[in-house]
């Protein structure tokens, strides 16, 4: 299967600042991928590159097997819902549907109509008067009715209240179940993505810090708690992702394929949020090598 998004040494520079650098990724098709990172980490830049709204400074990017936005066929493959789910405030819902039908060759009229009907909104209403949740749902309905192979959503739920957030993700997940659809969505809040993603990419300071399948990541990361000690004594197959020490206790997050055998550790499972945060708090300087040289830098390869 072709990757939904494949990048090779992709970079984007704005004047002097690199918004994204040396990004090599393989985001599988048919999956829901969460793109996580703090504000300014490069999420929107990567998504805009994938949508073809930006051109790379270095490297390459392929989306559903083609260069972004090169021709009409390529444009039809990718749906893009920009940050804060913008709509045309002066146009009605009906206008938006008409616009969608005119601009998209694969437009699914009945899907659009039924989704809008489910929202229970008056089609004559101007979208400038919709609530944030309603506008987000409309933008999602438009994105889905385009029938794209890949739907890209930039921070779709960030500005929504918890109820609207849940509703939005429910509709999105139903669409994934019904249509053959790859989804890439970004958020700076990991807990928003925990239930919906089966693949995750973490960006820190314009670079890919971690990428992989959620289940595989959860299976290979553990939190170890025990009496205070240094990480020098750790077995070679256990990579220390993060460490905290008090005067008596040491708490580590380690990545390992095998079991943790040392009985002095209490081993607990990590949720996705804690796992991702432990990678995000890792200082960038630690990536090139660790002071003690025994544990090595945490591996940041893309899990296949």
């Amino acid at each position, binding site marked *: 299967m072709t990757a939904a998004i494949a990048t090779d040494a992709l970079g984007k520079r704005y004047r002097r600042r690199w918004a994204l650098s040396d990004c090599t990724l393989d985001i599988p098709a048919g*999956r*829901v991928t969460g793109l996580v990172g703090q504000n300014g980490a490069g999420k929107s830049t990567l998504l805009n590159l994938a949508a073809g709204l930006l051109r790379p400074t270095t490297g390459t990017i392929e989306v559903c097997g083609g260069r972004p936005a090169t021709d009409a066929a390529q444009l039809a493959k990718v749906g893009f819902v920009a940050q804060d789910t913008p709509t045309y405030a002066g146009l009605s819902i009906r206008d938006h549907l008409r616009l969608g039908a005119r601009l998209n060759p694969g437009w699914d009229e009945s899907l659009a109509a039924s989704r809008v009907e489910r929202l229970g909104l008056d089609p004559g209403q101007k979208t400038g008067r919709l609530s944030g949740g309603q506008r987000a749902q409309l933008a999602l309905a438009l994105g889905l009715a385009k029938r794209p192979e890949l739907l890209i959503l930039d921070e779709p739920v960030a500005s929504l209240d918890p109820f609207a957030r*849940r509703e939005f*993700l*429910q509709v999105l*997940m*139903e669409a*994934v*179940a*019904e249509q053959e659809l790859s989804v890439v969505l970004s958020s700076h809040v990991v*807990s928003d993505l*925990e*239930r*919906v*993603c*089966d693949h995750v990419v973490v960006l820190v300071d314009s670079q890919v810090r971690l990428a992989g399948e*959620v*289940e595989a990541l*959860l299976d290979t990361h553990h939190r170890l708690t025990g009496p205070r000690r240094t990480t020098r004594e750790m077995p070679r197959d256990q990579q220390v992702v993060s460490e905290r020490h008090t005067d008596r206790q040491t708490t580590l997050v380690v990545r390992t394929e095998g079991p943790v055998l040392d009985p002095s550790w209490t081993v*607990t*499972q*990590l*949720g996705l949020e804690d796992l991702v945060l432990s990678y995000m708090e890792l200082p960038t300087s630690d990536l090139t090598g660790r002071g003690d040289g025994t544990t090595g830098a945490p591996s940041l390869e893309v899990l296949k």
Partner: protein
Amino acid sequence: MIEFSLDGRSGVSPYLQVVHQVRQALRLGLLREGDQLPTVKDVVATLAINPNTVLKAYRELERDGLVTARPGVGTFVTRTLADDSLAAHEPLRRELQRWLVKARAAGVDDESIEALFRSAFRGGQRGVA
């Protein structure tokens, strides 16, 4: 029909939670042979979770020979985990409830009750092994 729920704080992955909830329902006799599991679309619509999570859970249950998927129809229970011991559940539950009343009367709090149960349970397992 059963309904799933997810505990986001448990640290147990969503797909395993679904598997556990089906197994639990089979063990308690809530699901019997021939019963249909909720469709993937229904689960996704109620829980707002990734459909692949549900599919993965159902595939694992299928591998264990507990359910079978009929394409286009749904997923059905083929085997129950409630054995002959099901009849014994109710009296055992009553006994356990009596024990809980006794424990509370002795001033044992919930946390200590759980700890007591776990340590006795582990001790029991070792006794068998």
